[in-house]
């Protein structure tokens, strides 16, 4: 049983999140402003915090800064502020994830699951020495078993998708154009590629990403190519 602290000045939102998370089997603790949040954190054994930014007394950013002073607990920021600067600011200050309001419940749950898993299990796995296992963040491709796992869940990919993902993950952090991917995966000259690769990548994203439009692992750099984000 994991304890999740939900902190938002909108009681209804907190309530709704509580309902969802309780259904998922989490124990939910509630706070309605930054100060309460800090107090709750000190009192209880919390595994993950969902933190709103715009709150009275102490806002989400200040609270996050304070938390990070003494804890590495996963924090998911939850805000109506959807601008890039806000997201970057939040993530830079130590948030593990950033979800904008109005949020998709399934996405939020998926992110909570991911956060919890990483904090409790994956975090302890540490380095995997096997050469045939490639990973970034919680995305793992095991070339021995030919399996792909995200946040510990096995994802089913077609052989082509698997090959593309494996190639990109092997070379994580590097941007490859469609042509380059084609040449490397098919080991052949690209001639009638059209958008087969693009379609495959879209499908991979839909399978491995919580929100394919805002991918965490398989990033699209429009007009340049694709890459797997390098996450420790």
């Amino acid at each position, binding site marked *: 049983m994991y304890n999740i602290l939900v902190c938002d000045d*909108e009681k*209804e*939102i907190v309530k*709704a*999140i509580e*309902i*969802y998370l309780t259904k998922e089997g989490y124990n939910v603790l509630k706070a309605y402003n930054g100060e309460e949040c800090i107090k709750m954190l000190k009192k209880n054994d919390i595994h993950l915090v969902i933190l709103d930014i*715009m709150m009275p007394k102490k806002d989400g950013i200040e609270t996050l800064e304070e938390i990070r002073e003494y804890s590495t607990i996963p924090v998911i920021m939850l805000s*109506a*502020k*959807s*601008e*890039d600067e806000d997201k970057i600011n939040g993530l830079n200050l130590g948030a593990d994830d950033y979800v*904008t*309001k*109005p*949020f998709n*419940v399934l996405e939020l749950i998926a992110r909570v699951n991911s956060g919890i898993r990483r904090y409790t299990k994956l975090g302890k796995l540490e380095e995997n020495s096997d050469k045939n296992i490639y990973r970034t963040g919680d995305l793992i491709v095991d070339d021995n078993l030919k399996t792909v796992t995200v946040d510990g869940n096995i994802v089913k990919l077609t052989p082509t998708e698997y090959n593309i993902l494996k190639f990109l993950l092997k070379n994580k952090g590097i941007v490859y*154009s*469609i042509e380059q991917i084609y040449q490397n995966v098919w080991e052949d000259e690209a001639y009638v*590629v*059209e*958008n*087969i*690769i*693009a*379609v*495959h*990548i*879209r499908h991979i994203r839909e399978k491995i990403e919580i929100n394919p439009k805002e991918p965490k692992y398989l990033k*699209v*750099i*429009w*007009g*340049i*190519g694709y890459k797997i984000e390098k996450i420790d």
Partner: protein
Amino acid sequence: MKESRVLKILSYVLIPIFILNLIFCALYGICKEKFITTQISESEYFTSDLFLSDYMNDLKIECNNLIYNHDRYTQIQDGEYEISYKSNNDKYNYEIKDLYYLIIYENFVLTNVELTADTNSIEKLIKYISTQDSKTANIINGEVIAESEIIQNKAIQYFDNFIIKYYKIVNDVVLSEETDENNTAIYSYGKQNYETSIEDFKIYSSYKEQLVESADYKIYKDLIKKVQPYENLMIYSVPISGILITIMFIYLIISIGHIKNKEGIDLNDFDKIPIEIIFIVIGILVGLIIYFTILNFENLNECFYTGGISVFLLSYFVSYILCCLAMVTLIKRIKAKILFKESIIGNFCIWCSKFIKKLFKKIKKIYTKIKITYKNIVDSWSIILKISLMIVAYFILAFCFLLIFEDIGFILDLFILAYILYKLFENISCYQKIENHLKAMYKGEHPPKLNKLEFTKYFKNIVEYVNDISRGYENAIEEGIKSERLKTELITNVSHDIKTPLTSIINYVDLIKKEEINNDKAKEYIEILDNKSQRLKKLTEDLVEASKASSGNVKLNIEKININELIKQTTGEFQDKFKEKNLDIITQIPNQILYINADNRYMYRIIENLFSNISKYALENSRVYIDVKKELNIVKIDIKNISKEKLNISADELIQRFVRGDRARTTEGSGLGISISKSLTEIQNGVFELQIDGDLFKVHLEFNIVN
């Protein structure tokens, strides 16, 4: 009454008849006057000086004829010669008949006795003349032998008339130096100068002492005799005719041009011919007729006995008809008020007036120009005064220097002139600086503030004004930018405030959905709530984006982007969505790789919006064309598809925010997609054009290619 055709024709016919009546009466009056002449006694007349002078004159004329070889010389008929008696009113009422003569001059003979008669010799002729029952009067070699003592006595007085005549021959033509209407230029015998006198003539003549009424006089008398019984009638007919003519004339003037069942004045092509031409032509015609007919009758004799009356009447009526034509068209024109317009003079006048108006306008223009210039001069009076004073001062100074210092003065003058020129150029450069500054402002640049110290004192004020204006201008622009930013901020903040309650709505709707509800209607309502809350979410997100994009309030992360890659990626991204609608995508991308400078995420947003529109609004089972072309240094991307709905909306309208192809707004979408795409394209220095051709929806994008 005005339109009665019968009355008109009657008037046209009657007027000339009445006028004829008047003419007749007038003629009668004239004739009657002629008739009243003084009766004279024959014996008294033949012993009067009057007869003698006439007689001698006639002889003299015949002598002249003889010398000049006059036509008459061969045309004389037997006994045909007469002396007319003039009455005191200067008319010839009586004639002396049977006047004979025989004139012998050198070897030439002139006689009014037919030589063919049994009078072959001169002796016989003399005898023939004298044997007539008449008196003789002969002049032979200057001697007068007359039966009448008066002639005998008085003839000598007329001798002078028979003496001396001069002639000159020019080009074989003899010209008389003396003018005598009977013998101005007559062929002569070739003598250059000729002189003759009474002694050279032998004149035999005879006359009867009896007066005979002249032919004309007889006619008058007959006419008057015939008409006299109706004299009273004629006297009354004159005023009646006059009145009737006047009435009919006035009636015609009133009624001309009015036709039954027609309003206004009836005009035909004839009335369009310039009136001057009509008048001139008719005038000439009438003049010719009168000249060749009426005036041609030398006397009434001819008029009455050589078919003259019919000729006279014919010419009279023809003239009348011609005059009528002229009058009718004149009156019609006056009534229709086109007399002026349809005439040469009128047109000329109109042209003149136009010309004068134009001229006047031009003069006025010039006048105002001069006025403005004058005003400007007055307004800038102080400057002009200063300049004039300077010029005057310069000349005075220069003159003084020349006087005082002579040669050195000239050099001093040059220095002063150089100084003045320097000042002048200095001011001109100041002016140039201000002009450049204003030009830069006009182009939308922000030129640095003008430094007052760099300008001459004349420009200090102007510089201040210009600086003030440019400061105000910059402030206005800054204000504009600021207000645009504030607007965006406002929208962003409002959207945050909307998003929080919206989150609750969406979440609780979702929770309700998960509850077990057996009511179908409730389920339906929940579904609607779910849909609409999702749309509201999308709308708030797009609203912020649109406001940012249109105000340019976005941070661009410009990098080199491969268009070919972008199109492949995006089409791949939308493959599944297009497939759902069974849309066939036909892409045409050149093999050459095309790079542009842009922000990759915004580029994706542009294409994403367009593709998302296509997936929403394109006709199912149709084709979507994506063409990428390179033209010079520009990459052109055309995206074409066929709309599902009828697009009864213009391209411009569609670009505006919140407008969608379906006016009812039944489908999902905020209506901001195209607006956002356009703004984002323009922010990245691209061109975004939208065309609607029937159901064809076409988006045209242009970007600059970088190497």
